């Protein structure tokens, strides 16, 4: 191989690699270093090395524990809700029918709406006095709810908005997978006398399972880091009800000016995403091996 062709891949990939190094990896490394200091926002160059103090303080803090719990709860419910709703929607519009393209377009809309517009409209829908959500409940004879200001409801409302925003992505992905189930497979199942449920379980589900796994992974890591919708709807409140780790990072850095602690929080949150990703790849490898056998 000539020197030129050996260099080629680096010329193609090099730009992106350098970019990530400068604008992602280096800031991340700085974040790691900050997490071992007591740096304050008002004096960003004046931090002292404090070892693992920030991590230690967090791990013995009940508020941190409840933030981790909130994060896991929010992520689990958002991913489960979006998977259920998205898959159900994909099945509902999988067969051809007149107007299907329009229906699919309408169901795709939430995914395209910018987060800030989502927040504006849901803040109004959930408005206590005049919002349409409470007026709907009143019509059913149910009293007013403080959707975004009641500590018992805050997380549920924020999760519902998140599910609404992200389910179309799952719908589109599952729909694409469903369309690729070979017609002969379904046909032969039908000839063999399998009922709808058996055909679904034995043929369709195994076919779309890898797709569901990757989309579940993406959904999970995106939910673990979701910021705008939560922060702008509730700011982490009411009474910390929606105080996920990323919200916590932002609050520590910009409200409490504690960059060291904020960075340590961010690192621990990142570990959560890493764990999920590693689990995913272990599961993928196992199922790949099973298919080889």
């Amino acid at each position, binding site marked *: 191989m000539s020197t030129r062709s050996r260099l080629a891949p680096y010329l193609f990939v090099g730009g992106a690699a350098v970019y990530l190094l400068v604008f992602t990896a280096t800031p991340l490394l700085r974040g790691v270093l900050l997490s071992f200091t007591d740096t304050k926002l008002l004096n960003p160059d004046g931090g002292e090395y404090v070892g693992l103090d920030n991590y230690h303080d967090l791990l013995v803090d009940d508020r941190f524990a409840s933030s981790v719990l909130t994060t896991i709860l929010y992520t689990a419910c958002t991913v489960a809700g979006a998977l259920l709703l998205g898959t*159900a929607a994909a099945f509902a519009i999988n067969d051809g029918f007149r107007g299907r393209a329009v229906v699919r377009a309408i169901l795709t809309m939430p995914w395209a709406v910018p987060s800030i*517009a989502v927040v504006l409209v849901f803040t109004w829908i959930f408005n206590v006095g005049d919002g349409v959500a409470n007026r709907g409940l009143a019509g059913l004879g149910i009293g007013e709810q403080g959707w975004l200001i009641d500590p018992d409801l805050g997380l549920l409302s924020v999760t519902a908005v998140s599910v609404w925003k992200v389910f179309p992505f799952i719908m589109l992905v599952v729909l694409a997978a469903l369309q690729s189930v070979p017609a002969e497979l379904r046909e032969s199942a039908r000839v063999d006398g399998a009922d709808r449920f058996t055909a679904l379980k034995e043929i369709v589900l195994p076919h779309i399972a890898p797709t569901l796994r990757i989309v579940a992974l993406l959904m999970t890591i995106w939910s673990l880091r979701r910021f705008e919708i939560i922060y702008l709807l509730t700011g982490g409140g009411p009474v910390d009800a929606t105080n996920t780790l990323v919200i916590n990072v932002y609050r520590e850095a910009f409200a409490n000016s504690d960059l060291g602690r904020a960075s340590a929080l961010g690192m621990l949150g990142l570990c959560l995403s890493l764990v999920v990703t590693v689990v995913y790849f272990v599961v993928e490898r196992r199922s790949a091996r099973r298919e080889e056998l």
Partner: protein
Amino acid sequence: MKRLTGAGPGRWLAVVVLIVVAGFPVYWMLNTALATREELFSGQSLWPRVDRIVSVFDVFDSDVPLMRWLTNSAIVASGTTFFSLALAVLAGYGLSRYRRFHGRGLVGFALFATQMLPEALLIVPLYTLFVSLGLINGLFGLVLADTAFAMPVAAWIIKSAVDGVPYEIEEAARVDGAPRFVIFSQVTLPLVAPSVAAAAVITFFDGWNEYLFASTFIRDSTKWPASKGLSSFIGEFITPLSTVFSAALVFTVPAIVFFLLVQRRIVSGLTSGSVKG
């Protein structure tokens, strides 16, 4: 293909419920944009005053500097698209066509890892970096920060598109003695153009929608992109809601239109590109 008529009323019901769930908030933006203050607070009608539809554009004559915000958003979004695609087209092609070179795994991992990074964690280091580069309080700094998060997604989509182009097509041109870069730009790139377009839409609206960097890096309200500008209405009760939601609609509609145009390619690019490394 089977007609839905054979699928029973259960399915119709499900479709109708889904349409209402997905469509209602967008519908409500429109409804609110078309209502007067009195109508809103005396029990907002479920039916929008479509006869007032042109009044949505009155927002451009209001006190809200929407035109300036949208211009700033368009600048950030265009810049993000330009840098992201320039890097991602090359990287996507390189990762797809060259299977063995030092650091390939690392670059692949780094592209995926950006999906896990919370922006909130990177804000402070990026902030200090931009201060030292003199990029704070400017739209160009936003472009650079947004590109770091948008480019990996674009690279992913383009890589999976190139994966789908049979290598034999390039082989033929190679035999004719065409250099690799010419093959890339003249043969393969045109074939994956639809996916590049999809990646362009994704990156454009990444920049268009981005809020967190915009709200921390930009101090002058004249340089606010629309995401930050619109967020200033939250918890503010002076601007009429019809104005707020007219602005939100003008900001939202382009995103909906473009996403609907390219949704299929985004979906296949994101999922297939990530499983088959």
